């Protein structure tokens, strides 16, 4: 059975087209449509309900050691008030999930995980905790909104004291009063654009949504659905679990080397080294007409070299782009490949990541 976030009725009232995603019923787009929602985030601002994401708290004397053992990244030098991206792997080096880790205190961390993986992650982490470590899954009691776009700062300044708002990318502040609602506010997001994420009590998230929407109306803020969230992250070339990541791919194959620290021991490390990089995540831009989507075969000449994992038309770049896994060394930047799209060959050029980077 699919769950509803506290904002379900709000989404329906706003004309949201509701679809099941990660165990929740969420809007894929509103009446404005995902093309305009996508452009709003690049040019003005958009508001997303991402309350479906999972929040897991790790505390105690063993918390840091546990995370360093379970995760591929290293949190030893992560400052309180900072956020770090990481993967966690199984014994075979396959990716269990990707997540971000907030350091709340010396011995207290918040992990934010993909909704569809929350139960799996909970079990995986619980099974590998070191001594003197406690774990609490508070996914149900926390609501989460993402305010993204160049006007985000101006909107938030109307509702919160300037000095309480985090500034640096991947930094956060706790106990921020957003027009009377207590939130953890972080300079994070999944769109490649300037913005904030707000964690609050789930019974206050509807009120927070309304306050942000009111404050943002003069700045062109509109509600955005999962469709725009997906196209924005693709435009920013961010991988998505279930597409560019799964339990048979390693973080190195996914090109996420920056989040893997080989100078420490962690679950899956030996297997990742032993496997090597058999395939690589690459980006491509369609030449001419047509759209490449996921699960389509990639050819170099007559040789099949890989398969696509995400792809669609990107509204800001005004072109069709895709991500794919191809055999290591099969292509270089600038190479022309072909993709089998429903029996038709579509030409594409291998292009570097990210497709889009905010100024």
């Amino acid at each position, binding site marked *: 059975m699919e769950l509803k976030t506290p904002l379900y009725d709000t989404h329906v009232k706003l004309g949201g*087209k509701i679809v099941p995603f990660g165990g929740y019923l969420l809007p*894929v*787009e509103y009446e404005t*449509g*995902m*093309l*305009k929602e996508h452009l709003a985030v690049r040019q003005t601002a958009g508001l997303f309900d991402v309350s479906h994401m999972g929040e897991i708290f790790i505390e105690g004397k063993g918390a840091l050691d546990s995370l360093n053992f379970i995760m591929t990244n290293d949190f030893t030098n992560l400052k309180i008030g900072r956020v770090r991206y990481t993967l966690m792997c199984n014994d075979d080096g396959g990716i269990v999930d990707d997540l971000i880790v907030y350091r709340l205190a010396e011995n207290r961390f918040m992990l934010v995980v993909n909704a569809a993986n929350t139960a799996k992650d909970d079990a995986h982490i619980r099974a590998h905790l070191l001594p003197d470590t406690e774990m609490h899954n508070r996914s149900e009691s926390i609501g989460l909104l993402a305010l993204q776009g160049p006007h985000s700062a101006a909107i938030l300044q109307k509702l919160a004291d300037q000095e309480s708002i985090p500034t640096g990318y991947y930094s956060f502040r706790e106990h921020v009063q957003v027009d009377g609602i207590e939130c953890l506010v972080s300079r994070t997001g999944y769109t490649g654009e300037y913005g904030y994420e707000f964690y609050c009590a789930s019974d206050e998230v509807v009120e927070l949504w309304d306050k942000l929407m009111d404050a943002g109306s003069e700045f062109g803020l509109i509600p955005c659905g999962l*469709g725009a969230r997906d*196209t924005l992250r693709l435009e920013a070339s961010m991988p998505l679990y279930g597409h560019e990541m799964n339990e048979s791919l390693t973080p190195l194959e996914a090109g996420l080397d920056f989040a893997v620290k080989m100078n420490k021991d962690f679950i899956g490390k030996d297997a990742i080294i032993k496997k090597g990089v058999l395939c690589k995540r690459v980006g491509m831009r369609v030449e001419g*007409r*047509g*759209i490449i*989507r996921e699960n389509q075969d990639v050819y170099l000449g007559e040789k099949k070299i890989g398969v696509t994992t995400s792809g*669609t*038309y990107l*509204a800001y770049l005004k072109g*069709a782009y895709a991500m794919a896994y191809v055999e290591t060394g099969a292509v270089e930047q600038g190479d022309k490949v072909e993709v089998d799209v*429903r029996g038709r060959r579509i030409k594409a050029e291998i292009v570097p990541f990210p497709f889009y980077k905010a100024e």
Partner: protein
Amino acid sequence: MKTPTTLKYSKTHEWIRVMDEGIVEIGLTDFAQSELGSLVFVNLPDEGDEVESGEAFGDVESVKAVSDVISPVSGVVAEVNEVLLDHPELINDSPYETWLIRVSDITDEDELLDAEAYDQFCETEGS
């Protein structure tokens, strides 16, 4: 949006308008465009191509999906609405005024619905 009573409709959500001299226009219904969402590409046949009733003659792509466009008639493509190659959003904006192709030399036609029957059909599909 009101379903025009002057058109006929297929169960695959195309409309046809019968014009003079045995030519018909084929377009997509409001239900179809709203299910697909913002369209970004259309692929259409060439003038002179034959189309077959019940068979795809082209497809339309939105950000989230691609869908075949099925011909309700058999005949020959007399004209292609080439404006749509650069402006597929016209289908979203005014689906019943935006034709995709015109077909002549019609030899066969599927059983089609009138506006009322089509509306009823959509109600059972949509919910």
